[in-house]
């Protein structure tokens, strides 16, 4: 059976207590693509991606309605294990968060160790492979035992991506991954995002519309909890259909 979409969001709404923060969002996300989520602060972008790997439900008073289908299986189905969902849909946060008391290598394989992988040779081999796939290996190969927190911010962020990749996810969600990085580190991370899509689907939240235009294949514009427009990035940035999208990406409001 052909799976045309990796992820299908169907009428997704979310609340914090009584406050509705997402309103019936529906999107079909193709496999092996980069999707940028843009919109003003507080519009619901972060809540949306937290709903996609069931992190939203960890907040007291938070609630979700609608369906999120990963490979045609609803991740909110009662039979589905939330931990397994989070393994398949990894997350990289705004600020790099390596485990400071672990070495660079241990950071990469921390999740694997937790899930029961013990063979040191295998773990080292996976760490090397993942550090290479995020372009970090040559920069850190002589100091693998140093703390994950001892490297630069940009390197830490790529280390966190290597850690997420080690779990062999289908999708990685990135919440403003370059907001704390300098231009050179940002460029490296953007290059990495492009590379990653040969393997997995990436959803990236960014406030930098230029970055959305550079790295993504599809762009979704969210405003006040509603999906205003979703389409191919070229179309959204050249000829958006909705005047609100036009106003946002041309800097008329934020």
């Amino acid at each position, binding site marked *: 059976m052909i799976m045309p979409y990796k992820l299908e969001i169907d009428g997704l709404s979310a609340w914090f207590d009584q406050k509705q923060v997402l309103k019936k969002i529906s999107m079909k996300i193709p496999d092996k693509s980069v999707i940028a989520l843009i919109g003003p602060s507080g519009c619901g972008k972060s809540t949306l991606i937290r709903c996609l790997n069931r992190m939203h439900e960890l907040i007291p008073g938070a609630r979700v309605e609608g369906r999120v289908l990963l490979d045609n299986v609803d991740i909110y189905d009662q039979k589905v294990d939330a931990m397994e969902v989070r393994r398949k849909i990894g997350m990289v946060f705004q600020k790099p968060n390596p485990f400071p008391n672990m070495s660079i290598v241990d950071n990469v394989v921390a999740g694997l160790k937790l899930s029961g992988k013990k063979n040191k040779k295998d773990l080292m081999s996976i760490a090397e492979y993942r550090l290479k796939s995020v372009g970090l290996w040559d920069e850190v190969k002589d100091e693998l035992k140093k703390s994950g927190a001892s490297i630069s911010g940009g390197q830490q962020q790529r280390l966190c991506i290597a850690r997420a990749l080690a779990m062999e996810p289908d999708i990685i969600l990135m919440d403003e991954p370059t907001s704390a990085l300098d231009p050179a580190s940002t460029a490296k991370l953007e290059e990495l995002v492009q590379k990653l899509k040969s393997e997995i689907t990436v959803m990236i939240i960014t406030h930098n*519309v230029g970055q959305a235009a550079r790295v993504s294949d599809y762009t979704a514009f969210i405003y006040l909890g509603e999906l205003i427009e979703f389409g191919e990035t070229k179309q959204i940035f*050249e*000829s*958006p259909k909705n005047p609100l999208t*036009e*106003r946002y*990406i*041309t800097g008329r409001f934020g």
Partner: protein
Amino acid sequence: MLAEPEYLTEINLKLKEMQEAIRNIGSAVQSALLNRQKGTSASICAMSQTIHRIDEEITDKCVEALIRHQPFAGDLRNITVALKISYDLARVGRYLYNVTQIIDDVGGEDCEVGEISSMLEEARDMIDQSMNGYFKKDYALAENMTYRDDKIDERYRQVLSKYKEMKNVKGECIMLNALVARIVERMADHACYISNESLYLITGKRQTIRAPKCNER
């Protein structure tokens, strides 16, 4: 309608300057043609050079806007459209200069020029109206230009047919009419291109009007 960013206002002021320069040069060329007045090409060339200089200034401003402001959507379309329109106007300036070169080279004091002069007047108005359509983002005005261009194309073919079949007519009159009619036909094409850029600016949908129609005859 969205407020225009300052860099687009500056670019549009330059395009207005070009439009005004084309009006002036067009008026001078029209007079030179009607009077078959030799020796005007030097002054018209200087005016045409001014238009080229403004074209270069617009290119610089557009490049700067792309680098500094990274425009998107309507603003991005407007930059690409301004670049093309500026080039179209520079070409029109060059064509007007070419008309005076032909008058200088061919002469044609006794030649009938009523039709080509009328065509030139129409093409000048088309350029002017296409620019007005751009500034006002007037869809109807821009859309009408294709129709007017078709009429000019038809008149160009009629001029060629007429002089091809005419007997006892001076060679210089054939040359003057055929060459000027061809130039005017090209000017009208550029009016059409400008209008199509306006349509793209307004709708966001590209048309392939600049590509040659290989089987149009």
